[in-house]
């Protein structure tokens, strides 16, 4: 690993100042389960590390005013074992607990998972289907961006060098039912071959997939078809066809393109069958 300067600011302001001062040379350190591996492998060579874990306000999960807010430093285990999340958003809890091992989840964070913008980020699909907003803090104040506009490409987001994600929020809606699927080669400690979250609520269907495009994606065509038709064996079949064409997977070491399209059909079918 290259030599680094390490800072652990205790306020957002201080963290922003550091990011502004060091620009491209600085990396934010959160759970570290991704960054430290990348540094070890020479894929990341930050000169300055800004550890944001000492900023208290980033550690909270808040349920307030009909919104659920997940702070940037909330660990995957804390999210996945949070009583309210387990009861009302079990698919999100399941997604959080599907990542890495217990040891990894004690360090890794949901926001880190999102900010890394891996195409197969496991917590991205539940949050996309929940229409979550990303809270971004910078010198100009706070802005929120819908998660579906946050991802740009593989490992690329709209986040600028001098910005910090403080958390992610979504509307607390009693009518939401959701199903999360993760298909992987091993049961534990593996990356998704395909992952998905399908939500049904008073507002309609929300379908998101991971590992089938350069970023986690919403399947809007599939959603409109589902919203315009009543659920039946036939419409489920048709929705699955549409979904398998709407995604744009590639072949890689985990699976072929064809297999991924098939898995999209199977997982969507299984998800929708829950509500038939």
């Amino acid at each position: 690993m290259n030599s680094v300067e390490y800072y652990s600011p205790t306020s957002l302001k201080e963290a922003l100042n550091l990011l502004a001062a060091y620009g491209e040379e600085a990396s934010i350190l959160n759970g570290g389960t991704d960054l430290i591996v990348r540094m070890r492998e020479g894929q990341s060579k930050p000169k300055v590390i800004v550890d944001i874990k000492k900023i208290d306000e980033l550690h909270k999960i808040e349920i307030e005013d009909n919104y659920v807010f997940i702070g940037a430093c909330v660990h995957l285990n804390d999210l996945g074992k949070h009583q309210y999340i387990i009861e009302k958003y079990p698919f999100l809890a399941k997604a959080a607990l599907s990542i890495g091992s217990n040891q990894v989840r004690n360090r890794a964070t949901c926001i880190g998972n999102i900010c890394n913008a891996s195409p197969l980020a496991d917590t991205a699909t539940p949050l996309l289907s929940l229409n979550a907003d990303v809270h971004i803090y910078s010198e100009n104040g706070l802005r929120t961006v819908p998660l579906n506009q946050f991802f740009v490409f593989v490992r690329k987001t709209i986040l600028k060098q001098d910005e910090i994600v403080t958390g992610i929020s979504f509307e607390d809606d009693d009518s939401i039912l959701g199903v999360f699927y993760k298909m992987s080669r091993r049961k534990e400690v593996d990356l998704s071959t395909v992952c998905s979250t399908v939500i049904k609520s008073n507002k309609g269907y929300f379908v998101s997939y991971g590992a089938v495009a350069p970023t986690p994606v919403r399947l809007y065509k599939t959603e409109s078809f589902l919203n315009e038709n009543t659920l039946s064996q036939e419409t489920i079949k048709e929705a699955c066809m549409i979904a398998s064409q709407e995604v744009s997977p590639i072949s890689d070491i985990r699976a072929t393109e064809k297999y991924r399209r098939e898995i999209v059909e199977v997982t969507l079918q299984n998800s929708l069958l829950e509500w038939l």
Partner: protein
Amino acid sequence: MKKTINFILNGEPVEHAVDTNKTLLKMLREDFDLTGTKEGCGAGECGACTVIMDGKAVNSCLVLAVESEGKDILTIEGLTVNGELDPLQTSFVENAALQCGYCTPGMIMTAKAMLNENPNPSLDEIKEGISGNLCRCTGYKKIIEAIHSVAEQNNS
């Protein structure tokens, strides 16, 4: 570049100037000679480097040493107090739950953190609990039995 940090290591407060680019794993092994903690993959996949940080099992290869500031770190060496083995260590010996032994410290630290949280895990909970620890020798059966027997002692 070095930074001085203060933390608790196996019950003792320490002050130590550490390279800012060193992982907790490397610091334990190289600076403190605590070589019980092993490096397998160095990337969060095998669990050989597991230590307990503020009561939670973590992969020490995925933590920078400087992040230990203010933390309470427990390694396999810290389990033995005044020459007295921890019940988990005794149980691993009695159940022959190791062959080459490379995974053992990580396994035991993972099990320790698990039993602290849940003193009576079921066999399935034990299996899930150690799923972040690879063993290339034993086939896991004896490891699971060794942990289970400690859980049963807790029960009685």
